[in-house]
């Protein structure tokens, strides 16, 4: 019994020191990382001017695509209100009687998908055409009115998106009195198409500027590596691994990316702030409640993450490329 206890005790004793050793190792490892992490920050602060220049370049390169993205988001938000301008024109067959036409108008007005129905009779259409086109005399030469009557349907907001409006159009086409049904949203579709192109352009710009950030950082880190050439050689001589030597440079890249995206965020916020008042003034003239919105939380995180990732990538490439060249002799 006593022997068993002694043995159990010995087992506990033999486990706990190694346990403690592992814990010390892990703690030391984390501590060293933290030291290098903040040490690289301290090193950057020793050359404030060049650090500021580099982060500023990165900040501007990130702010450009991100700022354009914000602008596009605002335009999209604004154009969302334009769906209400969607209209469907139903041109009726010329032999449709007046009472029948009124029935159709009534039926349309009862539909939940429809917000507004305007009826333009053949006579009204003729008057309007005469007034607006200047071909009135030519029409007088004809012995009868060639124009059809038109019912203009404005879909309810929920049904004003391009897809829903198309579905509505297909249903109207089935009416046997309808000669031709036409969706008047071409200009909205064109606007959307243009915005798609602009969005694609912003994405391309973002990729190019992202590449620029990587190259700028790669070069900055390359210079840092050259400045610390002697130190790298000494560390290699006394048995420092590549990972150990790489670490401070990677953390520098992290900091450059972090502060670069911080500057980008500040630049965008300043721009949105400066523009919001005139935009609100303009919106008021159009009796709109529209106000400029900046980056939301997700976008801020995305901006920061992108900056840091590009920073790490740039320094990783530089370190991988140049560390091998520096060997002690």
């Amino acid at each position, binding site marked *: 019994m006593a022997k068993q206890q002694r043995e159990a005790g010995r087992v506990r004793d033999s486990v706990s020191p190694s346990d403690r050793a592992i814990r010390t190792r892990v703690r*030391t490892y984390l*501590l060293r990382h933290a030291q290098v992490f903040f040490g690289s920050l301290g090193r950057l602060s020793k050359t404030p001017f060049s650090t500021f220049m580099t982060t500023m370049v990165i900040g501007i390169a990130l702010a450009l695509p991100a700022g354009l993205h914000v602008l596009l988001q605002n335009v999209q938000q604004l154009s969302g209100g334009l769906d209400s301008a969607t209209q469907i024109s139903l041109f009726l067959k010329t032999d449709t009687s007046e009472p029948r036409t009124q029935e159709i108008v009534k039926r349309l007005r009862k539909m939940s998908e429809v917000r507004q129905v305007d009826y333009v009779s053949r006579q009204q259409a003729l008057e309007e055409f005469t007034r607006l086109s200047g071909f009135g005399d030519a029409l007088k030469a004809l012995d009868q009115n060639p124009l059809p009557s038109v019912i203009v349907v404005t879909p309810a907001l929920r049904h004003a998106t391009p897809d829903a409006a198309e579905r509505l159009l297909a249903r109207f086409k089935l009416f046997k009195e309808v000669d031709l049904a036409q969706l008047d949203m071409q200009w909205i579709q064109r606007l959307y198409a243009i915005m798609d192109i602009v969005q694609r352009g912003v994405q391309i710009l973002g990729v190019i500027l992202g590449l620029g950030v990587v190259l700028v950082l790669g070069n900055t880190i390359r210079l840092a590596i050259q400045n610390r050439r002697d130190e790298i050689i*000494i560390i290699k001589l006394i048995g420092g691994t590549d990972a150990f030597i790489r670490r401070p440079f990677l953390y520098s890249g992290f900091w450059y990316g972090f502060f670069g995206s911080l500057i980008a965020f500040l630049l965008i916020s300043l721009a949105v702030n400066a523009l919001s008042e005139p935009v609100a003034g303009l919106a008021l003239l159009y009796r709109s409640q529209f106000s400029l919105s900046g980056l939301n939380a997700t976008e801020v995180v995305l901006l920061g993450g992108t900056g840091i990732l590009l920073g790490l990538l740039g320094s990783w490439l530089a370190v991988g490329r140049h560390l091998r060249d520096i060997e002690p002799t």
Partner: protein
Amino acid sequence: MIRFSNVNKRYTGGYDALVGVNFHLAPGEMAFLTGHSGAGKSTLLKLIALLERASRGQVVINGQNLDKVSRRRIPYIRRNIGIIFQDHRLLFDRTVFDNVALPLIISGFSSNEVGRRVRAALDKVNLLRKEKSYPVMLSGGEQQRVGIARAIVNKPPILLADEPTGNLDPELSEEIMKLFEQFNQVGVTVLIASHDLALISQMGHRVLTLTKGKLTQDSGAS
């Protein structure tokens, strides 16, 4: 501990730095490597520290054939070899303490252990009071002792020194050599390249003499 078997080193360009070198240094042995400049002393030390690779023949350190060591494993081999340079190779933007601590930080020692070992090493070279100084504030001899403290701080079994007394006056040189003897007495294998023949003969250890890349004289046996 250090075994050279028929080692040749030819640099690109066709210059033969070492030709057919054979010798064995037993664990705990101390030896001097001498010869005119250009005789191959530095090259021989570089082969041990894996700064260069042999063109032909084998270098075996601590039972490890250096031919078979991949690039990734080189740092771990170097951790078992303390190297002392004529030009000290200290980091001038760090204190004496931080310079000496570097090998321990690299190997991942805990902060307590680092402090303890660095102070022990500095005590051994008689520089305990200078731990917060920067290398520029020290004399040449003191800088060399910082270099020595850094080389021995993680207790490597092998100590190499390339002209460690090259820039020092005779008195300081002797002091430094006595220091190496002390490390040797606790079991460290020591190999010192030097052309200070007077000092070497005075010390009375094994002497390996290189002439134009060939080992022409070996005073000791093994």
